[in-house]
């Protein structure tokens, strides 16, 4: 119970932060951060990757050379944590990614920090650390190939994918 109130509190404070944060990345639909959900019977299979993307959002975004979580990122991760509690057998991989405006080796290290930042936040919200593995792809796996600010801002992310589910 205590935990529930704590999380509710975080949600409330995050809502304020999110309302002020207007510098979020320029998202296109494929970035998958649309968070409006409805329990349509024709929706994704509950507990699936598509379900995670629909009901929580599977990507959080970072500022240039940053690995601190924005309010928006914390809100997404809080929804992921809640979702993961609904599906306690699910294991996930958190991949840290960077834009191309950095060197390969430094970006591998930066991507590892981003993945770890997302993982730590999920753990702080009660997700068992043993369910989460992390990986860094550095600047090697951009989701938007363009050489624009908009592309770079979506390429700086930590992406959660389901790697296994019991039962």
């Amino acid at each position, binding site marked *: 119970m205590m935990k529930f109130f704590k999380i509710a509190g975080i949600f409330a404070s995050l809502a304020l932060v999110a309302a002020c944060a207007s510098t979020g990345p320029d998202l296109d639909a494929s970035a998958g951060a649309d968070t409006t959900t409805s329990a349509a019977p024709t929706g994704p299979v509950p507990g699936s990757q598509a379900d995670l993307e629909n009901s929580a959002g599977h990507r959080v975004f970072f500022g240039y050379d940053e690995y601190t979580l924005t309010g928006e990122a914390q809100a997404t991760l809080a929804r992921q944590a809640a979702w993961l509690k609904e599906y306690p057998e699910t294991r996930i991989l958190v991949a840290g990614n960077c834009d191309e405006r950095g060197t390969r*080796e*430094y970006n591998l290290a930066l991507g590892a920090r981003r993945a770890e930042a997302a993982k730590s936040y999920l753990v702080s919200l009660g997700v068992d650390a043993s369910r989460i593995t992390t990986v860094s*792809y550095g600047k090697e796996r951009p989701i*938007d*190939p363009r050489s624009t600010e908009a592309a770079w801002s979506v390429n700086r992310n930590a992406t959660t994918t389901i790697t296994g589910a019991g039962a």
Partner: protein
Amino acid sequence: MKRLLIILLTAIAVAATPAAARVTIDITQGNVDPMPVAAPNFLGADEATQGLGRDITGVIMNDLDRSGLFQVIDQRAYIEKPESVNQRPRFADWRIINAQVLIVGEVEELSDGRIQVATRVWDVYSDEQLGAVAFKTPADNWRRAAHKVADFVYKTLTGEDGYFDTRIVFVHETGPKEKRVKRLMIMDQDGANPIPLTDGLNYQVLTPRFSPTQQQITYMALFDNRPGQVYLFNIETGEQEQLGTFRGMTFAPRFSPDGREVMMSMERNGNSDIFNMDLSTRRLTRLTDNPSVDVSPTMSPDGRRIAFTSDRGGTPQIYTMNADGSNQKRITFGQGRYQTPVWSPRGDLIAFTRQYNGRFYIGVIRPDGTGERLLTESYLEEGPTWSPNGRVIMFYRQTPTRRDGTGGSSQLWSVDLTGRNLRRVRTPGDASDPAWSPLLP
């Protein structure tokens, strides 16, 4: 790898003359005028050796021209047609076309089926021979013989070892940016003989580096869904092995100058520090222990200092430390971000990538942090590697994509230490992360 037998033509070489009278190139100065050099096609007694002679001359002239230190005079201007490598040239004929150096050579088929490539280098103005050399090798190895001749000419005229008989290992890139296939390839320094070393199917190859002492490469393999790891690749046997098994990612590997150790970064719980692995015992020694990013270690040729990138000061900058990790200090203080230090094989400079004001630069700086010079600049370039004589830097340059996200290529380039002579390096398709081999044995 095929071996070359070197014979100095001492018996027929004329006596050495005082060095002061010789034609020489000072390669430490910027703005040198390229030295005009003439090289008639190497002679041969029959059609086969004449054909080889033409090919060998072409490779030599291309090497010398690309170095930026020589200007190869068009063969159509030549007046004298030499008939033997042992004949004294008519120097007046070469002075008229403004040649300063004349290279005359001959290809001979030996009774054991190999060929001998004999070469003389003449100073056209003092009418004297500067040097003579001959190489014996299997005929299909003629390219290496040609590079050896070019290295001999380079050394004769500059006093320093050349870098033409070397190879480049690099990452060959295909496919769209979002799903890039990256495999390891090797080719001669001039782009000839490209050979794939990995298939690029299950992992991407990143940041290969040549052993300074053996035909061995270390690189990082980036996998799907598990942390990337550092590998060792033996070029002669094709064998590869993972360097240890670690829970976190291992990356940014580089050999020590004696080839016995591989320095690398290891990530644990999101934090990257620098370690050194002894290749014979596979034991790891921790060199940095810092909550910031510590990556890209590179050791001085004397083995005493290590340069690396760290963002402990807020942005990535270059630091140096003793080989045991002590005495860490920052050496870059300019605006922007300094990364990818690579110590010159001569020890006098560290090459780096600098990001400043939205642009990328390749530059050099002294190990004490003084004398910074930027050599090239573009939208995105990084990953410098030194020629074994420390005079040329190769790197990769990436162009931006078009508005629709297509295009945007990645290519290898080289530039000399003076910042002059920027040249594209020929590769089969897109390429990145070049690594220069030592001079081949």
